[in-house]
């Protein structure tokens, strides 16, 4: 298994494609893994680009971790992967929480980032109103409850209450109840408006037409100096709900 040693953990990485500009793709948090990209848009993007996927610490096939899940900590993990696999300025694509990490990484390491695509991300990641997706997921008691939040295609993939579903629940339970994740997300949840204003890189905001995060999209449009919005006919889970449209939007942005 290809791994990168980063800040005391071993991160599982997958590299697709051998030629072209590097693209780092970041997945969502808690029940996600790099498979989100591997089975949707990554193979197509890799036809002309060097695509690098990583599993966050404690997710997928990366080693378990009890801390280091806040935006800054995960941005440091991205930096370690980029340093070893793509030291030149790279495009960063992040879905959901991964998009928030991408913005944090770009603010902290502007010289390493060529452009950023944010796919239906919340920012701040945790809001006080308790209606945030993360909070709903973390507070839900039964797997069935949060399965209902998923679009049909993803629900079919996780299918019922079998082993696949159980493994996701195990990962979620481990992360939410056996680590500092919830505390760290609340403590390091945002990228300030003035930091966003300093980010002079092109940013694509690819948001679902039925996004849970319209407010974030509008805030990012106001705060970022070089942002463009692409609305996709989808809910929150854009890579699963509208892979073709997302692929087209990313290709156009990456080639611009």
């Amino acid at each position, binding site marked *: *298994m*290809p791994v990168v040693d980063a800040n005391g953990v071993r991160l599982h990485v*997958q590299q*697709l494609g051998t030629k072209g500009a590097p693209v780092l793709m970041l997945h969502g948090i808690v029940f996600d*893994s*790099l*498979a989100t990209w*591997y*089975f*949707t848009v990554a*193979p*197509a993007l*890799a036809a002309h680009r060097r695509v690098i996927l990583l*599993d966050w610490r404690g997710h*997928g*096939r990366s080693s378990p971790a009890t801390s280091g899940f806040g935006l800054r900590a995960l941005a440091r993990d991205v930096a370690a992967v980029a340093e070893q696999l793509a030291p030149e300025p790279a495009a960063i694509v992040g879905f959901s929480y991964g998009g928030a990490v991408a913005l944090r990484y770009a603010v902290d390491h502007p010289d390493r980032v060529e452009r950023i695509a944010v796919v239906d991300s919340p920012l701040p990641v945790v809001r006080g109103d308790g209606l945030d997706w993360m909070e709903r997921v973390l507070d839900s008691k039964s797997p069935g409850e949060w399965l209902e939040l998923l679009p049909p*295609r*993803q629900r*079919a*993939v996780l*299918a019922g209450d*079998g*082993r*696949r579903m159980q*493994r*996701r629940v195990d990962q979620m339970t481990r992360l939410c109840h056996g680590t500092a994740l919830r505390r760290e997300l609340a403590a390091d949840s945002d990228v300030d408006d003035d930091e966003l204003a300093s980010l002079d890189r092109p940013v694509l905001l690819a948001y679902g037409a039925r996004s849970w995060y319209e407010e974030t999209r509008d805030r990012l449009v106001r705060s970022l100096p070089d942002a463009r919005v692409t609305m996709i006919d989808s809910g929150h889970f854009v890579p*699963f709900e509208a*892979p073709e449209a997302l692929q087209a939007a990313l290709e156009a942005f990456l080639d611009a």
Partner: protein
Amino acid sequence: MSTTDAVRDEILGEIAAIIREVVGEEWAQETPIERETTFGGDLELESIEIVALGEQVQARWPSADFVTWLSSMQLDEIIELRVGQLVDYVAECR
């Protein structure tokens, strides 16, 4: 049995061994893995385990471009793939 069938049986045996290794759990050693076995419904493989399977298939048969093969399918189709489809793809690429 034709030579082609023999080759496919051999590939099936190797892929079954890879699947058992990727799963790494006791039940997988006892579960029959045949051409009609599905990755999702029968084996209950998680998507990240199919990534691991692809990595090993690619390493064992470098001419089989697993990622490109998958790129023509949707995730729900991939999850419901039969082991025999992967065997046939590997056989064609050899």
